[in-house]
């Protein structure tokens, strides 16, 4: 009986052991299976989060993209611009109208201050003329100076390619001369000024599209324009004939005018006592060009008009250009040549009975916006 009980107990112990072993085996299987399943399938949602973050960042950058102004640049050595937009021309008696245009031109002015301002004392009865598109702002007005009439044009360009020397018949050294008005129209100038009339005399350094046409620097002051639109003033004696070519290369010169003298240099009025051209101590019609800032110019003629019987001395030109904040200013050919053209019309009186003369070159300021972009 005892033997039977012992066997029965042993059998039960074995059965319990077997069950426990089976349970241990199953649990181990379960753990292993769980681990394998987790290991083979589990991953993170990093990819989705990463993509969402990158796409959100991209959207933010794109939404914040600044609305840029189109930069219009004319071809190098262009001798005409696109036709100016007739809707952009205007004239008024009211300086507030022009001031509103100036405020529109804030981007073009790029922080620069105009010499023109609404409080300028204009010649009585004279209008203000203006043109503005995204590439050029031009304001033309008249003042009285020592009983002379000064016709100013203030010009701000977007790009230096919009200023160039335009020759008569559009040909270097040509004896077919044209009026400044005709040359201005053919080059589609918004505004233009008569230049040095280089075909009238055989002295000075004449550079056109970087090529030297004439090289005789001894007697005249010179004004060189580089491809960035900056004026470089060189007084007589400061450059020798054999240095001109290197000077043009070193300073990236586009063209030059040879008349003079230098009126203002580096912000200083020049003391001109003697000069071989322009009868500086006699009353003559005067023409000048000056630079106020980057791509910012003053054009000026000083002439007699009805009730304002004086023309001007060179010292008047110096005073006028200095007053208009020119850092550099230079006298162009005066007398009957002195012509300031705006919108194809001569803006100053020519003090000679025969009126506007034909001559050989002007400096043109044009818009750069093609007609299809208006």
């Amino acid at each position, binding site marked *: 009986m*005892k*033997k039977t009980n*012992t066997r029965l*107990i*042993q059998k039960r*112990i*074995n059965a*319990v*052991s*077997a069950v*426990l*072993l089976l*349970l*241990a*085996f*199953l*649990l*181990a299987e*379960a*753990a292993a299976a*769980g*681990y394998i399943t*987790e*290991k*083979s*399938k*589990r*991953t*993170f*949602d*990093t*990819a*989705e*989060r*990463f*993509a969402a*973050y*990158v*796409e959100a*960042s*991209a959207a*933010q*950058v*794109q939404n*914040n*993209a*600044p*609305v*840029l*102004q*189109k*930069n*219009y*640049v004319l071809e190098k050595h262009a001798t005409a611009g696109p036709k100016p937009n007739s809707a952009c021309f205007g004239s008024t008696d009211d300086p507030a109208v022009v001031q509103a245009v100036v405020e529109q031109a804030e981007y073009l002015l790029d922080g620069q201050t105009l010499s023109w301002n609404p409080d300028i004392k204009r010649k009585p009865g004279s209008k203000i003329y203006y043109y503005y598109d995204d590439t050029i702002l031009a304001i033309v007005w008249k003042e009285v100076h020592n009983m002379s009439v000064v016709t100013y044009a203030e010009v701000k360009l977007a790009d230096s390619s919009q200023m160039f020397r335009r020759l008569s018949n559009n040909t270097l050294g040509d004896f077919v001369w044209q009026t400044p008005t005709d040359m201005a129209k053919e080059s589609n100038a918004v505004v233009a000024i008569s230049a040095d009339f280089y075909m009238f005399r055989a002295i000075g350094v004449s550079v056109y599209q970087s090529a030297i046409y004439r090289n005789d620097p001894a007697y005249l002051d010179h004004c060189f324009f580089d491809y960035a639109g900056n004026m470089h003033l060189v007084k007589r004696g400061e450059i020798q004939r054999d240095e001109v070519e290197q000077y043009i290369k070193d300073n990236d010169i586009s063209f030059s005018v040879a008349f003079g003298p230098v009126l203002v240099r580096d912000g200083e009025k020049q003391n001109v006592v003697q000069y071989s051209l322009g009868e500086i101590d006699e009353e003559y019609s005067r023409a000048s060009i000056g630079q106020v800032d980057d791509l910012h110019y003053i054009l000026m003629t000083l002439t007699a008009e009805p009730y304002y019987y004086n023309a001007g001395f060179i010292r008047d030109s110096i005073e006028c250009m200095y007053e208009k904040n020119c850092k550099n200013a230079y006298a162009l050919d005066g007398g009957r040549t002195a012509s300031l053209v705006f919108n194809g019309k001569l803006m100053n009186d020519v003090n000679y009975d025969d009126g506007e003369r034909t001559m050989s070159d002007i400096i043109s300021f044009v818009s750069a916006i093609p007609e*299809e*972009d208006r």
Partner: protein
Amino acid sequence: MLWILFAALGAACIACLLQCVRYTEDKLKIKALPVIATVILLLMTVAMGLTAAGKQVVGIGGGDPGAAADRFFSALEAGDFDAAGAYLEYYSDFGLSEAPEDSNTALVYQALIDSYSHNITEKARVRGIYAVQTVELTHLDIDSLYEAMGPAMEKPLQRIVDEKRKADVFDENEQYLPGIVEQAYAEALEAVTANTADCLVTETLELNLVWTLGGWKISVDDALLNALSGFAAY
């Protein structure tokens, strides 16, 4: 899972314990082999129980956790995500093994993957089956990259604006037409992702590792995922 293993070991331990004595006739015989197995299983059960309870059992871990961390990052730098995944606890990868479908996002992704580099300067701190390894990880910072994108977009955008007719760039409200900004963005992104030196960041990570039957594995946490995703994930 540790608790399941603990239960399995416990069951096996009891089963062995029951086999330690045998009643034959009127004698009680103690069997050596089940006793030894019971002792071993008992120790393992205690260790597993302590482990499951989060206690540290000194001396169970083996091998070098630093080497595992080093191999993980080396595999990442080589672009071998399968090999890297083998060093992760529970997970087969950290979620960035496939390039995004969008071509622009894929550029950023590739720049991120290419940016990984690591440096292990000190030995891991091992406590039982756990270890902490300090790793200096250099990776792309997505925010820095997009900070650089703003200025980088201006040049291609200006070129596109200058090259095209105005009517092909702006609508009547002087806003960009669809596709203009996207084109500039794509060009800028190519340039910026080609040179990300200024957009990299090096951070020190405390990498948690755990010893398993398969060796030391990395316990992935948010800090690691965030670093590996260039701060773009968490």
